[in-house]
């Protein structure tokens, strides 16, 4: 039976050749490891968000008078509504974590270097979009936490002279966060960001396939002669076949991701729901200790430390520009980070500072 199906497809799309070139004969470097699967894990994380999000969309009402009740309805009356909501909330935090880990490992392995600069740029843009997904989605349940965290984060642009207030008013649709903010954040979250993200992910994957997977530079030294002056797709003729070798690893990591998600949902279901996340928004009552979400804590804390608001936000923008354009700034030939002690130390220093800033911002 399956032979007949395969044959049917073979005649119409040339199934055999597709399977050969992309699955069974596609070769990956011998020293590929689990860290190389983080990109796939992030992608699967995104798919979980999309699917759970679409189901939530069926019962959610994006109006300030009904949003909170509709989410309560999903959590208490709709059968298994709690499951999809929990997956969406936990999933959003896990996806951002996976994206950040993916970024750190790519940096560590020097896989942003020529000819992969565009892949890096696309990836950083996707991270920015993911954070915007997080920001816009956070407001939708219309709880005290949503309302006030959004107020704080959307007030950050006011530090910018001339345009700052305008940008804040544009984000909020007015002077304060209100029902107007809710509808535009909803449009952003559901209709504006997904197509951009989709375009970026497709070009990201197309570039990876076109250029080929780079060999991990530790252990065995990369025999590629640098600098590269002409296009050459990177192949690994003596590497492992993608299926089953790398496929297994990806599957295991995805299962691991699912296990972390369900461990949180089972044992600490209120991990992402502090008290203010269970009461409806009240524009007249500011809770104590309002803070943005964890992934915005480090920049927020950094802004708090710099005395001049304008200087603070400019430093942030410069850091983000350096971050996006890093492959163009770091032209060093050496790809192996263990042979570059200065870069390694600065990188670790930045990572630790960000973690400290995040912890500090949490207090």
């Amino acid at each position: 039976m399956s032979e007949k199906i395969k044959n049917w497809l073979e005649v119409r799309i040339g199934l055999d050749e597709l399977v050969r070139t992309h699955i069974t004969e596609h070769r990956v470097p011998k020293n590929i490891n689990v860290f190389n699967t983080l990109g796939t894990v992030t992608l699967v994380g995104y798919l979980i968000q999309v699917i759970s999000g679409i189901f939530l969309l069926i019962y959610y009402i994006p109006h300030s008078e009904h949003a909170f009740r509709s989410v309560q309805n999903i959590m208490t009356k709709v059968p298994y509504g709690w499951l999809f909501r929990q997956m969406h909330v936990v999933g959003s935090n896990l996806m951002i974590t996976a994206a950040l880990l993916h970024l750190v490992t790519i940096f560590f392995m020097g896989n942003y270097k020529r000819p992969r600069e565009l892949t890096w740029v696309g990836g950083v843009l996707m991270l920015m979009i993911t954070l915007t997904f997080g920001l816009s989605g956070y407001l939708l349940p219309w709880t005290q936490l949503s309302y006030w965290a959004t107020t704080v984060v959307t007030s950050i642009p006011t530090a910018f002279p001339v345009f700052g207030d305008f940008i804040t008013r544009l984000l909020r649709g007015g002077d304060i966060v209100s029902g107007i903010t809710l509808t535009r954040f909803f449009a952003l979250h559901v209709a504006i960001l997904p197509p951009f993200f989709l375009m970026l992910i497709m070009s990201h994957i197309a570039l990876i396939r076109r250029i080929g997977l780079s060999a991990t530079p530790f252990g065995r030294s990369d025999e590629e002669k640098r600098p590269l002056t002409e296009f050459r797709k990177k192949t690994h003729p003596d590497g492992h076949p993608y299926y089953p070798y790398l496929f297994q690893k990806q599957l295991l990591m995805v299962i691991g991701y699912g296990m972390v998600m369900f461990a949180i949902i089972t044992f600490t279901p209120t991990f992402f729901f502090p008290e203010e996340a269970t009461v409806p928004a009240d524009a007249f009552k500011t809770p104590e200790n309002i803070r943005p979400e964890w992934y915005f804590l480090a920049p927020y804390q950094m802004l708090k430390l710099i005395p001049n608001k304008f200087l603070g936000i400019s430093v942030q923008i410069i850091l983000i520009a350096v971050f996006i354009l890093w492959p163009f700034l770091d032209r060093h030939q050496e790809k192996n980070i263990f042979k570059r002690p200065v870069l390694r130390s600065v990188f670790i220093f930045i990572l630790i500072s960000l973690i400290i800033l995040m912890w500090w911002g949490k207090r």
Partner: protein
Amino acid sequence: MKRRSFLKVLLTVFGAASFASFAYPLVRYLAPPGGSAEDKKVVIAKKEIPAGQSRAVLYNDKQVIVINRPGKGFIALSKVCTHLGCLVEYEKDKNALSCPCHAGTYDLEGNVLSGPPPRPLPKIPLKVEGEQIIIG
């Protein structure tokens, strides 16, 4: 060989189990709500509430007060005070609703006149058809 195929079967079993544990909730989630859980309307005869009087009814497990306002017709409001939840009472001579717990006062449209209540009393949809009042 035997071990490998056993493991593959086991894998298929687990795969099917995980698929089912999402497919079943999904079907239940999308299925239309069972029965008329929301639509149990309450019907009272008009003559049960003479002008200037009120009646408490239970609609959808919620306490509701129906008032026959002199000159302005019938209105159904939630009886639950928006302050801490005590049940408000109709004060005919004051043309207002008052809460016995902390003296929250509302007018006959549900708007807060004085006291601690933070929000007006929600209105419940009410229709008058012939000799009957239909709430809900």
